């Protein structure tokens, strides 16, 4: 009996792979496993062949049936474990100090394709020389975290005598965040038309024209809210050394709040690995395929965290449906269900009357192709055994010996 060498196995499996009988990933897994086996035992060519035929048989057996209601099954497979999920919104994951929405609320958020998710989080990986240098990582983090006047001022007061607003900067904080007082002055000057003066090296005085107390108070609030540094929407950043990222551990920045497009532009950020949980930002920045992948990744994360076993194919189908039009559509009234072609399907989901009236003005035609429509009118649905139709070939005479009837010539009618 001839034995297989590693070279033979690789050659044979390459051949097998290119035959396209089973997905490539299965073949490459098989190569790995065979090589591992070969260390301990011998494999004959005959055995190899029977392994291959067994693999093909197993794969063929597991194919989906044509007409399978894969949509409904996906919806059920994701919806059913929903009853077993926790409702607790906040959970600590990865970074202990940070809140992350998980469980059922997060799943609903994903499916709803919310424009403003409750706790968007970015995981910012750093470029080579930044990733291992804490000092440099901190610099990047400082550029990302949104710093407002209120974050660096010990107090913002109103000086009624001088008719001015007085910002008392906390010099320690300033140093901590690597901001000079002049920078603050510049930013303030840029945002307010009145003169900004530095007094005593830590006080900023902004003279005001208004003298009304209430309007000064309003101005004070506005000044407190002026951004000095960082990206819009990012409330907090945390730098952590992740031991199992990269070769010998890397510094990774986590941010509460998300501004994906801007963050990728910051020097020192590794745009290839940086990730956000904000689906729409991914769609805007990286495109719809990336958004599709992140829908899968985010849903997967929720389900695994809850210890629920759901096949990837179901999640993939939902993600593919949500992104099939080129933009993220939500599952529900304002998305897929609301844009269905059938009037009856829309009417029987939500906002019944609106859809009926709209159909009337538009003179819509419901072709009864979907499920709900046919259930409503009491006809067979085109799913499962219902997809099969009897077809009659119109020129059946091809198979008979009879002379075919002359086909009447179609003459284009004038007007």
């Amino acid at each position, binding site marked *: 009996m001839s034995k297989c060498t590693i070279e033979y196995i690789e050659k044979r499996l390459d051949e097998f792979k290119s035959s396209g009988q089973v*997905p490539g990933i299965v073949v490459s897994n098989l190569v790995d496993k065979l090589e591992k086996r070969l260390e301990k035992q011998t494999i004959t060519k005959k055995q190899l062949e029977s392994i291959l035929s067994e693999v093909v048989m197993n794969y063929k057996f597991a194919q989906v049936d044509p007409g399978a209601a894969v949509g409904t099954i996906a919806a059920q497979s994701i*919806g059913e474990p929903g009853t077993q999920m*926790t409702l607790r919104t906040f959970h600590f994951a990865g970074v202990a100090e940070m809140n992350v929405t998980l469980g059922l609320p997060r799943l609903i958020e994903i499916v709803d394709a919310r424009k403003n998710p409750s706790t968007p989080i970015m995981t910012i990986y750093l470029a080579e020389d930044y990733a291992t240098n804490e000092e440099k990582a901190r610099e990047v983090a400082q550029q990302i975290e949104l710093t407002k006047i209120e974050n660096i001022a010990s107090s913002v007061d109103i000086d009624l005598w001088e008719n001015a607003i007085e910002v008392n900067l906390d010099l320690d904080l300033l140093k901590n965040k690597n901001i000079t007082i002049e920078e603050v002055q510049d930013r303030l000057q840029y945002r307010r038309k009145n003169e900004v003066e530095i007094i005593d090296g830590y006080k900023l005085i902004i003279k005001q024209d208004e003298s009304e107390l209430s309007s000064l108070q309003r101005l004070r609030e506005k000044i407190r809210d002026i951004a000095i540094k960082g990206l819009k929407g990012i409330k907090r950043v945390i730098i952590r050394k992740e031991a199992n990222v990269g070769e010998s551990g890397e510094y990774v920045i986590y941010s509460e709040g998300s501004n994906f497009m801007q963050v990728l532009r910051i020097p020192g950020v590794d745009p290839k690995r940086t990730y956000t949980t904000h689906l729409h930002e991914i769609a805007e920045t990286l495109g719809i395929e990336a958004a599709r992948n992140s829908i899968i990744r985010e849903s997967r994360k929720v389900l695994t965290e809850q210890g629920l076993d759901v096949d990837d194919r179901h999640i993939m189908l939902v993600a*593919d449906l949500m992104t099939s039009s080129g933009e993220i559509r939500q599952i529900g009234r304002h998305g897929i269900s609301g844009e269905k072609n059938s009037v009856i399907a829309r009417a029987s989901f939500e906002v019944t*009357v609106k859809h009926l009236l709209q159909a009337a003005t538009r003179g819509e035609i419901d072709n009864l192709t979907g499920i709900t429509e046919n259930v409503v009118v009491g006809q067979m649905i085109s799913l499962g055994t219902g997809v099969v139709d009897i077809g009659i070939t119109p020129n059946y005479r091809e198979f008979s010996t009879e002379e075919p009837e002359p086909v009447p010539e179609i003459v284009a009618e004038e007007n």
Partner: protein
Amino acid sequence: MSNLPKRIDSIHFGLLSPDEIRRMSVQRIIVADTYDEEGTPVPGGLMDGALGTIDPGQRCRTCGNRIGDCPGHFGSIELARPVIHVGFNKVIYKLLNAICRVCGRVVLDETRIKAIFDAVPKTDLDFSRIGIVPFHIADEVLKEAAKVKQCPHCIDPDDSSHGTTKYKIRLEKPTTFYEELELEDGTKQINKITSFDIRELLRKITPSDCQLLGIDSTSTRPEWMILTALPVPPVCVRPSITLDSGIRSEDDLTHKLVDIIRINQRLLENRDAGAPQLIVEDLWELLQYHVTTFLDNEVSGIPPARHRSGRALRTITQRLKGKEGRFRLNLSGKRVDFSARTVISPDPLLSINEVGVPRAIAEILTVPERVTEWNIEEMKELVMKGPQGHPGANYIIRNDGRRVDLRFTKDPNILADALAPGFIIERHLRDGDVVLFNRQPSLHRISIMAHEVRVMPYRTFRLNLCVCRPYNADFDGDEMNLHVPQSEEARSEAYILMRVQEHISTPRYGGPIIGAIQDFITSSYFLTMDGSVYTREEASTLVTAAHLTDLPEPRGIDESGKPYWTGKQLFSTLLPTTMNFTMKSMFCVHHDECKRTACELGGYVAIRNGQLISGVIDKKGFGAEQPDSVLHRILKEYGSDATRQFLDGFTKMLIANIDLRGFSMGFDDVDIPLEGRRRIDQQIADTKDHVNQLIQTYEKGLLERQPGRTLEETLEMLIMAALAKVRDNSSNISAEYLGMANSAVIMAKSGARGNMLNLGQMSACVGQQSVRGKRITRGYKERTLPHFKHGDLSADGRGFVDASFRSGLEPIEFFMHACGGREGLVDTAVRTSTSGYMQRRLINALQDISSLYDGTVRDSIGGIIQFIYGDDNVDPTKSDHGKAVNLDIILDKVLETELEGD
């Protein structure tokens, strides 16, 4: 061929024109009355006989059919003045804003229209409706036209220097329109536009303009949104009910129609009599109100019309919308015949494929069976038995289509003799019939499965315990539904596609969802654990219970010289003889180096050539929802028939086994010796001291703040961590005293029920109670209960329960425990509704998607969602826990399992 089933191809929506309303009307309704004193319908009234009949026995005056066959016929009311249809008020508003008040054309010239068209990318054009202006263009046209101030098509009658001035239109909800005129002196004048004028204006819109405005002029003319004639729905749509007292009570719609006719008549009379403008206008407005509420009684801005009792009327819109509306209640979901519902109870002796049906139900549910030459004798017997007495029949349908009710026959023998091939007998449900069995909520497809009937005494449905999991059923009073398919096609589809054994693998993750639960697992532990031996009598009992006939060779001879069998041997009698498989059981503790078959914990389950040679079969071996188990392997390698046989046989053997030895858990199972109690008490006391110290350091201000947290949060976290640890520690202490002889431990370890945490709570310490993930803080000001001082942060004051369930809780502890328990209840209640709604949305969005013969996944109009399902076209149900091919198993199979030891 006239009874060929007709198929609806499509439904075209549109508006009824006044002419069409009149044409389809069989009767003009002019009298606001329903019935006269004698109870006969008033001619020309709302219950006019021409509108169809609701009295049984009476024939319809229009179509001549009786109730049930008469579809009902519309009448009509001629409205004295036109009235706006509320549903279209916004459309009318937009139209009025987009057209010229004189010529009725869209106030955009060619170039601007072209600009709008050009602005829309070509790819956005809706290809399914080529030729019709896409609706988002119509929105754009409406928006643009609303901005225009002067009409480009006609000349202002007041000032010929420019086009007709367009005034701003204001809609005062729901149905009043105003025109805001700007006079030359800069003041504004607000004029009401009557629905009469609106109608005239809308009439001027040309068909091509209609298209631009998003109206399909072939089916809908804009002026039809103003009603001049009102269709009166047939009587069967609004049947009156006769109460027990003999008083007739009319439907809400009838009430509303009475109002409409009454006001309409008054308006007509006043108008014709030349009454003052003010009175006519008041009546007109009243008519508008009544028509509005007739169409929709929940319009904002006007009070809903009410019944005499004060209840708001349920008019047309209310009938259609919402969960209880026509669409969701009657059209998407339909009531069915041939169904039954009763309480369920367990029966381990049934096969998983079976369902026990009470005789009383089997005598009512029927299956139609055609009489043939071959079954005529059997059918005769059924007919003679009649509706009483079990395998009988309830009806005979003769060849002429006549239906004979066997309940009312004097002599069934005569009927039986008259049977001829071609008759249909509606016979009782009997053993072996295929039925569908369902438990709500039907969250996934395995909530409805096909079972084979077993007719049984008593009044409950019986089912095998292994199928509890897919239905999520228990027996604390659950009820289930049963449906009997009536055609051969339905029956065979149910049998082939929906039978329980075909659904052992769930599509959710491709593993068995049907499997053993609870006592089966306990019993299996006893059967397959090391050292479990059986005498000949016992072994035969077990093997016969599993419906097997042959005992294997005894393993050996015991001291008294009698042969004995091991439990593993008996289990192996049920395995396919060619089976080879290795897995880890619940008892595996993941030693650094696996001892394999020598594992004394029973953690290494090895099956060689159909013999279990080591390991314990527990939850991981054949439990429900356990992928990669022995059960899963049998299913994948030997198919559903073999798996059903294995499960049926093994569970029966396990019942017999646990009957032999008995199993129970009691108070003393969670009792630990005094020494252990002392150690636990000491632990708790120490931890409480530690907590108090933490509080003291905090109060002195010496506590160090953790990054990202406030001082208070830091303290809470430290306390929580300390208290969580003490619960675990005391659980572990109690576990030291509870060995494998303890019933509760056996259940926990084998995975039958409960876990060590539960046991710890019962025997050692219940631990910290929490609400929203924090210690309990709410109640009184700065304290949870008045028994504590203000600001008490101690363990006791924030809901730490020292006691165990065994020792019993103090009142305060009990209260704290109830706080945590209540949160759980609220959480469950909220969760079911939110997740239910999420699932409804998911299903609605995804239900049209299916795989097709070309391998693509498409929606209902053929749009491609995936080019190949799930990237590999593999059905998760048929996959091996998500994998298309389980390479390890194949390699093992082909390369032969290397045996342990060598």
